[in-house]
């Protein structure tokens, strides 16, 4: 966190100064470790074992926050008798279909209570998984029965609590030592600190970023932390939570108003060509009827009204038919395979540098080279725009410029200081930024580009039916200045939404299913309340309380802590004075506190839903997790995940050790692309080391924004690899020497930084050396410094839920000296692929 979120890390330092104890779990000793009270070195890819052992520690010793767990989680819920655990099936859950390599999740469901949803509505399944369906639950959960059978004594053998207990029973401190390389004493200290610092008076927070996500079990890493936090009562309370530290400045914004293929704004699922024929169909299948998702018709219809305006009427399903449809996986890596196979002909690359930043760099470039046309919009001439004239494949002879038919259009983009708009940060905080200066030359904002591109495209449309969707779009933003820049505030206001009177709405609860309201993203509704740009508020922290509600605007409803109903006990009283956050004021008959309460403000704690209630009305006054159909925090996920209702430890796709727990070595549901462009390392002694990749404070991602800047480039001028002294000695490498790193994808060279910060770990009886590589270098991109592309080394293998690549744990070999060039490099590679 100190490395990649140094500005945010100031709050960790402040917490530390106030007595918080900081643990850091990472394969490398980093700047964060240097500030932590305790550093726990871990083998990359083994965190589920560590977190699972903490869960086991809590359950085994009865350390859970029982009142919280009983009231707010699904611990008491009884699960279907068809369910079988990985403990029973040697690493597989019930429902595994080896032919399609996917799970049918029916057996994971809650025990039947009579009426059951139709089978095809159960989330999961191949099509669902293919379209990255699980990722559509960004703001909530999949549907589950709102009032399932429960056992409040938590003794029923099929209640979630007992299932969890059995599931994690083998996740012991000994296993942590054997698989993660973390000694028992260190684990004990962590377990003691985490449990002692949870409960009524105290809370513990977990902070993670891509060290947890970029794995074939990435989503399940986070699930494991969520289970632990729910058991300890650390969700929805101040000082608790699981903080995802996100990446690019507005990457949160770009999932809320997504650049992802599988969701619409506000985490509404993208319609599927075969699953959702019309609006009714769609609404029936995507999400539950209870909880706030029960309002999804209002959200979707308002979105359609924002997009198609007058043209969207009740008679035509509000233009639902205009929405594009998924036919399967249209994710980044599948798209690249389509390029290589010739099925994808054109490509827009906006603010991304996949030739360097994406896994399997060679495959990326092979794809780019097989396109008809490519549009790159970037601040600098990044490698993605120049691969055809200076890419590494030219040196090896795998490509020749004259053979590449791709027509490349490079369009210079305005940077964040050269345009106005909002950033949504990791805390869901929208912060408005003014333009500081005009973009130079032909550089234009992305808003300008899309608006005018849309305008020009619409000019060329025919009256034909096929052109109707773009023709009927509302596409009329006010423009200003010599370049006719569209007004970003007008866009923000459209996102906020307007009511029948044309005035800006102030809350998503005002959205209607009848087409009378329009709203570009329901979770952002309120950012323009009272016709005021709430994101532009800048009241200094010294002039308001610690929650600082008047700095920017947080979705939803300017709420700073989600699910904060859980900060009060079931009766609505704070769990403790120390941790008071929101509470029920019986006199005034409403919820109050330091933050905007995350529940209906007038719903008393003793409210019980009447039979047949819908949406939020179906949630009791004690249900804090209002986006879930049952209002509960899910210790066990009866649906919605592609790889199981509970996390299980699987080895990374490429791992030097066997899975001690199960016969199933790696995540069975992981997405693989076993192709000649990007083969996998064969298991065995050829690739004896663990390789992990990461960032440096001094650079940014694929380097397009840091390598051209002298002040940053001079701070980390060359690609280097970090390795421990013992391995360096064995390889005859000294500090500052050159090393060659090999996977079956490619061979690259890096300078050597010999450092005790890389600690070899004894795992399963043998010493495992880990190599660390920062991935910021490339051959060009206007960079003042250049270096080999680390992503050329990484495998194309993905988490099955969200399709993130496993960039954090793989195997490799290391050789002393620089790498061979040209043909000789390919020859060396061949010896690793086939030798």
């Amino acid at each position, binding site marked *: 966190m100190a490395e990649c979120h140094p500005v945010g890390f100031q709050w960790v330092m402040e917490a530390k100064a106030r007595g918080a104890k900081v643990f850091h779990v990472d394969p490398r000793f980093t700047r964060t470790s240097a500030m932590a009270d305790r550093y726990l070195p871990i083998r990359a890819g083994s965190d589920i074992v560590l977190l699972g052992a903490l869960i086991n520690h809590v359950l085994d010793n009865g350390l859970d926050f029982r009142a919280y767990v009983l009231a707010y989680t699904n611990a008491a819920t009884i699960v279907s008798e068809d369910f079988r655990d990985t403990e029973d099936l040697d690493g597989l859950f019930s429902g595994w279909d080896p032919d399609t390599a996917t799970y049918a999740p029916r057996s994971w469901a809650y025990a039947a209570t009579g009426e059951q949803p139709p089978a095809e509505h159960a989330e999961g399944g191949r099509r669902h998984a293919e379209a990255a369906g699980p990722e559509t639950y960004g703001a909530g959960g999949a549907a589950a029965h709102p009032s399932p059978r429960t056992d409040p004594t938590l003794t029923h053998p099929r209640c979630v609590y007992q299932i969890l207990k059995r599931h994690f029973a083998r996740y012991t401190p000994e296993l942590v030592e054997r698989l993660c390389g973390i000694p028992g004493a260190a684990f004990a200290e962590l377990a003691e600190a985490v449990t002692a610092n949870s409960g009524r008076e105290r809370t513990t927070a977990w902070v993670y970023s891509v060290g947890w996500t970029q794995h074939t079990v990435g989503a399940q890493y986070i699930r494991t932390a969520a289970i632990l936090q729910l058991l300890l009562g650390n969700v929805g309370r101040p000082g608790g939570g699981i903080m995802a530290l996100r990446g690019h400045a507005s990457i949160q914004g770009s999932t809320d108003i997504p650049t992802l293929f599988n969701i619409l704004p506000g985490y509404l699922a993208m319609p599927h060509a075969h699953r959702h024929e019309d609006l009714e169909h769609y609404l029936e299948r995507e999400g539950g009827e209870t909880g706030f998702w029960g309002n999804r018709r209002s959200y979707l219809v308002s979105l359609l009204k924002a997009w198609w305006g007058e043209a969207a009427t009740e008679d035509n399903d509000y233009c639902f038919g205009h929405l594009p449809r998924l036919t399967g996986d249209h994710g980044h890596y599948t798209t690249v395979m389509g390029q290589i196979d010739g099925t994808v002909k054109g490509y827009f690359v906006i603010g991304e540098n996949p030739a360097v930043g994406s896994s399997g760099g060679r495959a990326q470039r092979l794809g780019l080279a097989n396109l008809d046309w490519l549009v790159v919009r970037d601040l600098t001439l990044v490698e993605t725009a120049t691969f055809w004239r200076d890419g590494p494949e030219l040196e090896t002879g795998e490509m020749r410029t004259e053979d590449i038919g791709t027509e490349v259009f490079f369009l210079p983009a305005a940077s964040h200081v050269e345009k106005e708009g909002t950033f949504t940060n990791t805390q869901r905080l929208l912060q408005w930024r003014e333009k500081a200066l005009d973009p130079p030359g032909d550089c234009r904002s992305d808003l300008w580009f899309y608006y005018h591109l849309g305008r020009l495209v619409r000019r060329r449309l025919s009256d034909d039916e096929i052109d109707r969707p773009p023709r009927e779009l509302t596409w009329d933003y006010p423009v200003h200045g010599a370049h006719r820049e569209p007004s970003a505030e007008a866009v923000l206001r459209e996102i906020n939404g307007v009511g029948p009177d044309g005035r800006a709405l102030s809350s998503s609860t005002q959205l209607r299913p009848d087409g009378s309201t329009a709203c570009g993203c329901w979770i952002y509704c309120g950012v323009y309340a009272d016709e005021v740009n709430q994101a532009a508020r800048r009241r200094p922290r010294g002039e308001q309380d610690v929650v600082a509600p008047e700095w920017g605007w947080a979705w939803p409803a300017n709420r700073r802590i989600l699910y904060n109903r859980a900060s009060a006990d079931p009766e609505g009283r704070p769990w403790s004075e120390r941790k008071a956050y929101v509470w029920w004021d019986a006199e005034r008959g409403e919820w109050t506190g330091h933050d905007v309460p995350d529940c209906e403000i007038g719903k008393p704690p003793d409210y019980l839903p009447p039979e047949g209630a819908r949406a939020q009305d179906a949630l009791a006054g004690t249900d804090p997790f209002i986006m879930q159909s049952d209002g509960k925090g899910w210790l066990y996920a009866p649906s919605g995940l592609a790889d199981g209702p509970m996390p299980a430890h699987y080895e990374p796709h490429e791992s030097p050790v066997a899975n001690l727990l199960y016969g199933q070595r790696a995540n069975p549901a992981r997405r693989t692309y076993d192709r000649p462009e990007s083969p996998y390392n064969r298991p065995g002694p050829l690739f004896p080391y663990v390789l992990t990749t990461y960032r440096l404070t001094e650079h940014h991602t694929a380097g397009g924004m840091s390598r051209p800047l002298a002040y940053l480039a001079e701070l980390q001028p060359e690609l280097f690899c970090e390795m421990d*002294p013992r391995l360096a000695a064995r390889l005859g490498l000294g*500090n500052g020497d050159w090393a060659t790193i090999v996977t079956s994808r490619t061979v690259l060279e890096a300078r050597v930084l*010999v*450092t*005790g910060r890389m600690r070899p770990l004894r795992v399963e009886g043998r010493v495992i050396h880990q190599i660390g590589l920062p991935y910021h270098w490339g051959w060009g991109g206007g960079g003042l410094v250049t270096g080999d592309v680390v992503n050329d080394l990484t495998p194309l293998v993905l988490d099955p839920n969200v399709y993130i690549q496993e960039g954090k744990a793989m195997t490799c070999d290391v050789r002393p000296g620089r790498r061979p060039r040209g043909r000789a490099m390919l020859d060396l590679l061949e010896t690793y692929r086939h030798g």
Partner: protein
Amino acid sequence: MRTEGAVVPEAGFRSYYGRPVIKPPVWHEPHMPTYLYLGGMSGVSSSMAVMARLTGNPRLARSARLAAAVGASAGAALLAAELGRPERFLNMLRVFKPTSPMSVGSWILAAQSGLSAAAASADLAELLPAAKDMALLATAGDAALLATGLTGPLTATYTAVLIADTAVPAWHEAYRELPFLFAGSAMAAAGAVAMLATPRAQAGPARAVAALGAALETAAGTVMERRLGMVGRPYREGRAGRLMGTARLLTAGGGLLAAVAGRSRVLTALSGLALTAGSLCTRFGVLEAGRASAADPAYTIVPQRERLDAAP
């Protein structure tokens, strides 16, 4: 492996990757050492010119006057060239700062070069037929010359303060001996030039100055190195050590030769050249020793650490 590097094998001595603590002097070669040589030579030449004039040795007086003038102005030119911004040379005379040996020195050098130039030109002017009767000119020249009797020795020695008033351990710690080392070196240099430039019959005092200078330099150098202890090592090691050793040989040899040269043309020439080379070597050596002592953190850290540890 202790990554926190200790490059110099000094017991218990720690540093930051063996990097220097202080900045080495940025002055360039050959400018700065040559200037030191020329300044010294000019300064003592002035003293000799004054004495030669007073004792009635016109040939020696003339060559010393000329040497003083040439040395001072060539030195000033080198100094200007050494500056990062030569066009700003005059900024030196913007202020007079007693805390800055370079400021004080600049004024001394300005006086020395002006006066010695005046003295030399007056002397040369006498050679011109038209100037035969210009008594005033001669008087002015003599007055200037007399004044250089003051500025000359200062020019020859202030440079020791100049370099000693720095954080460079091999210089600062030697601030007592350096002025004598430079004084001796300057006498040897000036004596040598005068020996070579004056008919041998009139050059006796020059030989005496040269021999005395050589003796003084040798003695001062010996005392300095003995007293400096560990900080004196840069004077004995590496390039500086070789330069200082060579200087020692040349100066001692040249001094002895000066003492015995008499009217021998060969011995005079040998002695003069040896002393000149010796003086130059001393200046290059001292500069290099300073650089070496600045570049190696041991010379900064070890004495300071000892000082701290010794303090109550």
